């Protein structure tokens, strides 16, 4: 894999970002609408830290939103 791209999984779908990309970039790429929350590699990342959270190759990003539940 070339180091000119950063492969990640967003909600288990493969995507590529540029090296140095942050969680904020991944959120923008996914195009999710608020409200939602994010986790990287099963660790919660607060909304206030998206722009500081630098991603690594093969990070697994989860973006989840409200849904009905019992």
């Amino acid at each position, binding site marked *: 894999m070339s180091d000119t791209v950063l492969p990640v999984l967003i*909600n*288990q779908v493969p995507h590529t970002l540029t090296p140095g990309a942050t969680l904020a970039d991944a959120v923008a790429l*996914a195009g*999710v*609408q608020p*409200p*939602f*929350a*994010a*986790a990287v590699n*099963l*660790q*919660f990342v*607060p*909304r206030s830290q998206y722009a500081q959270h630098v991603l690594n190759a093969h990070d697994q990003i*989860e*973006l*989840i*939103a*409200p*849904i*009905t*539940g*019992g």
Partner: protein
Amino acid sequence: MTTHTPHADPLTLYGETFHSRLLLGTSRYPSPSVLLQAIERSQPAMLTASLRRQTGSGGEASQSFWNLLRQAKVPVLPNTAGCHSVQEAITTAEMAREVFETDWIKLELIGDDYTLQPDTLHLPEAASRLIQAGFKVLPYTTDDLVLCQRLVDVGCQAVMPWAAPIGTGKGPINPHALRTLRERLDVPMIVDAGLGLPSHACQVMEWGYDAVLLNTAVALAQDPVRMAGAFADAVNAGRAAFCAGAMQAQDSAQPSTPVLGTPFWHQA
């Protein structure tokens, strides 16, 4: 006349009071409109909700549900449905806290996908870590007395034993266990899962349970709005009966009409 819990007898959980003893799930209704009417009819203390990956058209459904929650103006109880590990449950709870802006969490930690039985071995650890993180944890659990005691030991101020597996509608399948649990533990207890009829809800409330949490029994009724009202009435009836104190059952007949002065009576 009101179907709401009298203000003199509120449900108290983690120091907060609720003027209803019915918690209502939001899933599987025929339409959002029917869900909203069921909420209005039953006036629940809390509404359960969940979190799932947002994809394509799912984004619109999520937005619609979010708007419905805001319109309902009922406190939200997020759940960790579908989590199979302690870390999954904790991360989901943290995400729910940010999205729903609440410390309440219905802790679901599934140990068996077929029965949706809680992971009884790891539930106390998950509850303990969430409580340490500042959550108000309502754990979905089996009716096992020792497990529920362990949940209280780690700081749960309420527990939610099942009546039967989720979505079965069977009603209390082990009345002895539920009644023993009620007698042994002093914390508020909410029967969560497995209720199918208002009489089931009334029964567990008569036993002294503090509240019930329902979803499928209302959502899959032919008339969910009417059934929501029936459950609300049953919960209130059961609570009133518990507070009133039931008579002791007798083995032999006891005439309720005075015998003295019975007409046409004569000594044999």
